């Protein structure tokens, strides 16, 4: 048991995470912090094999108490299980140039990499096989899924080597990967989704068609969500270099309407397709995203 759960939880804050040097340490800090903050874990027993008894501690799920043992010994014991899985999970991380934007402590790519590393750490800890695909308008890096303990290190190294790419074309890599999948599994897409929504949704539906569960983490910077600019500025597109001179006060309403429309469309159409959609603000703690994953993971079993 972690003696300082509150200290661990501070690693969920992006401003704190940004100060941690290695991705390995970041992922471990995030996951440990996240798990230590859960008072009652509803996520145990996905796939179980009995391991041992342990004396009941306050906070343990009452449903795990072995009443037979209680009848014999008049003491409360809970059953511990060895977790095992044959789940194959693909982490798809968008490394296009638009992911390089960041108004806070981390860019979207850094935040996404942290999220991917944390998910990988969590999956590896649960014996799930996890793989990584980095893409912009094509697949740039690929690490096949594996559940070996040493695979996590390979995953983290791959993540740390990822650099910003070129333009976004989410649909193309999605279709490539969907065609290559041989068994059902889970696909986690981490992207700012600044692409043609129809193409993106179509690519994700391709996975659903192949029987895979899909979770979409729509990573956006706070500036992109709220457009807080005040001064008249030249806005330069990170990917195309296109410049638009605009007075924020005049264009804010239009922008927010457009952004809300984009988010709403993703949420609506992906939901309709059975795809979990999670909007992630890079200024928010990472546990929101991890919670979304675990909720989705829990429903799968």
């Amino acid at each position: 048991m972690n003696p300082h759960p509150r200290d661990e939880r501070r690693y969920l804050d992006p401003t704190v995470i940004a100060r941690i040097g290695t991705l390995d340490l970041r992922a471990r800090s995030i996951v440990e912090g996240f798990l230590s903050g859960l008072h009652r874990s509803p996520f145990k027993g996905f796939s179980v094999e009995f391991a041992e008894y342990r004396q009941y501690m306050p906070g343990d799920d009452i449903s795990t108490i072995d009443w037979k043992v209680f009848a014999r010994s008049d003491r409360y014991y809970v059953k511990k299980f060895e977790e095992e899985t044959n789940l194959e999970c693909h982490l798809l991380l968008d490394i296009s140039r638009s992911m390089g934007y960041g108004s806070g402590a981390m860019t979207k790519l850094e935040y996404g990499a942290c999220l991917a590393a944390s998910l990988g750490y969590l999956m590896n800890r649960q014996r799930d096989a996890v793989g990584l695909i980095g893409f912009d308008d094509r697949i740039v890096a690929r690490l096949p899924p594996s559940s070996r303990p040493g695979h996590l290190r390979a995953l983290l190294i791959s993540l740390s080597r990822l650099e910003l790419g070129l333009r976004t074309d989410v649909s193309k890599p999605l279709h490539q990967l969907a065609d290559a999948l041989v068994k059902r599994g889970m696909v986690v897409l981490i992207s700012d989704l600044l692409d043609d929504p129809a193409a993106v949704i179509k690519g994700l539906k391709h996975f659903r068609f192949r029987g895979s569960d899909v979770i979409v983490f729509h990573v956006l910077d706070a500036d992109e969500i709220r457009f807080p600019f005040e001064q008249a500025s030249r806005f330069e597109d990170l990917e195309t270099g296109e410049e638009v001179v605009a007075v924020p006060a005049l264009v804010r309403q239009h922008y927010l309407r457009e952004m809300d429309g984009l988010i709403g469309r993703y949420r609506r159409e992906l939901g309709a397709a059975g795809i979990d959609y999670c909007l992630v603000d890079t200024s928010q703690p990472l546990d929101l995203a991890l919670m979304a994953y675990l909720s989705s993971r829990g429903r799968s079993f």
Partner: protein
Amino acid sequence: MFGLSFLVPGFLAAAAAVAVPIVLHLLRRHPDVRVRFAPVRMLRQAPLEQARHRRLREWLLLALRVAALLLLALAFARPYVPDASASSAAPVTIVAVDTSFSLSAPGQFARARQLARQAVRRAAGGQPVGLERFADRADLVVAPTMDRPQVLAAIDRLRPGAGATRYQNALARAAGAIGARRGTVVLVTDLQASGWDAGERGALPGRVAIELADVGAPKGNLAVVDLRRQEGGVVATVRNEGSGAATGQARLTVDGRPGVVQPFSVPPGGAVQVPFAAALPETGAAAVSIDDPTGYVADNTRFLALDPPAPMPVLAVTASGGGSADAFYLAQALQAGGAAEARFSFHAVRPSAVGTLPAGEWARDRAVVLLTTQGLDSNGREALAAFVRRGGGLFVAVGPGIDADVLRSLLAGRLLDVTLPSADGPPLSLVPADARHPIVAALGAAAANLGVARFRRVAQVTVPAGADVVAQFSNGAPALVEYPGAGGRVLLFASDLGDRWNDFPLHPMFLPFLYEALGYLSGPRQAPAGYFVGDVPPGVPAAPGVVSLPAGRGSGAVRRVAVNVDPRESDPARLTASEFRAAIVRLKEAGTAEAQAAAVSDEARQNLWWYALVLVLTVLAIESVVARRAV
């Protein structure tokens, strides 16, 4: 522009700063702020500002910024509308008549009146004319007016006085009367050379013309230029400014009674001393007169006050209440020379009696020397403090009799701290610290001899800000400190004036040091033995003679002083008109004090800069509103 003038036109140059927003406007067609952003495509369809509107807004902003800068420069230049009545009025003529005693020779002043009348009549019909009389001082007898008979009548009433000529005052007063207008000064004078002091120059605005009306000078002048007391009588000095030898008789009068008559003979351009052997009274007034039928009248008699200069009363606060023990050397020094020649009169009281001294005693005393505070009660301290507040001088010798706490309460507000020595230290000497201080300056080269004395004990004195260390000991500690403060002067000597802590009284420099220190303490109040007519204090008639003045504040005693004419005025040497004009500086139109004063007055009355500043703020407020919406 709109009849505007500017008090500080140099600030208008700041209007060139309008180039800054114009250049920026031309260079910065687009905002400098660049934001690298991801979802730019969402801005692409936004209703961006129309270019035409933006250009209009930019030009409006530019105009507002330029206007703000121009108005700011205008406000700082302090604009005003000149008073048209002052600048456009008809030229003024000021007739300035010399009434010094150098115009008192027979027929001279009649000639001066005639020239003055001519000047008045010569002035153009529509021009105001004023009348000024001048000698040591200059007075405007009639302010510029169109009433010529009034001016002519005033000229008839003018009489020569006993003052000396001072052209500078005359020109300044005339220029002041003309003010910001154009005008002419007609100077009716004998062009006496002594009217300019050495190196002195007059000043007139360039728009004021000057005309000289030369009265002329007498052929010669005999004058009694000096009279002083000597053993067995008086001696007068008679000077002959004529071209031929002069003989005559000089008459001595004492207290108005005719006395000895002495013949004299003076060579041309020379002077002789005429002694009068007479048994003169100790006090009273004497005068020596001569006859000079052709020269000036006022310098034919010279006056002398026979009263000897009174010694300066110094009160010493001593332990014994007299001049023994701790005050022995002080008393001996102040009474040196005997009662007849002593510069100071010494008297002493015990500290306990200071508070009961009558008011007349305090009014008579010039300075107080405080040697001891033992027994000085609160009444005494308050009496001493009041004496200083009224302008009296206080010399504190920090010796064995001084208590630091009493001293601190006595000099509250001036003294910071004094620590008395408990034992003898290594012998120290006295060194002047401030060569410019009047005490040290009066000692001159002899000040170096102060170092001969040896000081075994000295008090540690804290010198407050503003205090002047006049002398210091050889270890750098302050020795003689003058403390600042309102009222009279306070000197603090950081050792005693006896021989207990030092051997200073045994050295020859003790006496001059003490004399200069006490003389400095009462210096500003030392009354002069005599005055020139032009320098008499307020309340004394500006006429030659012997007058009685109060000797001290509230004491009731009087002293006689002689008032005589300035002997420089007795010299009839003259300037040519060109020499006279060469001594006058012509000021530029805008630089005259009068014009400047009028401009300041107009500007202060109108306060147009306030309106300009309010406009600046308004324009800036509009600019900020427009700029918030501008690209």
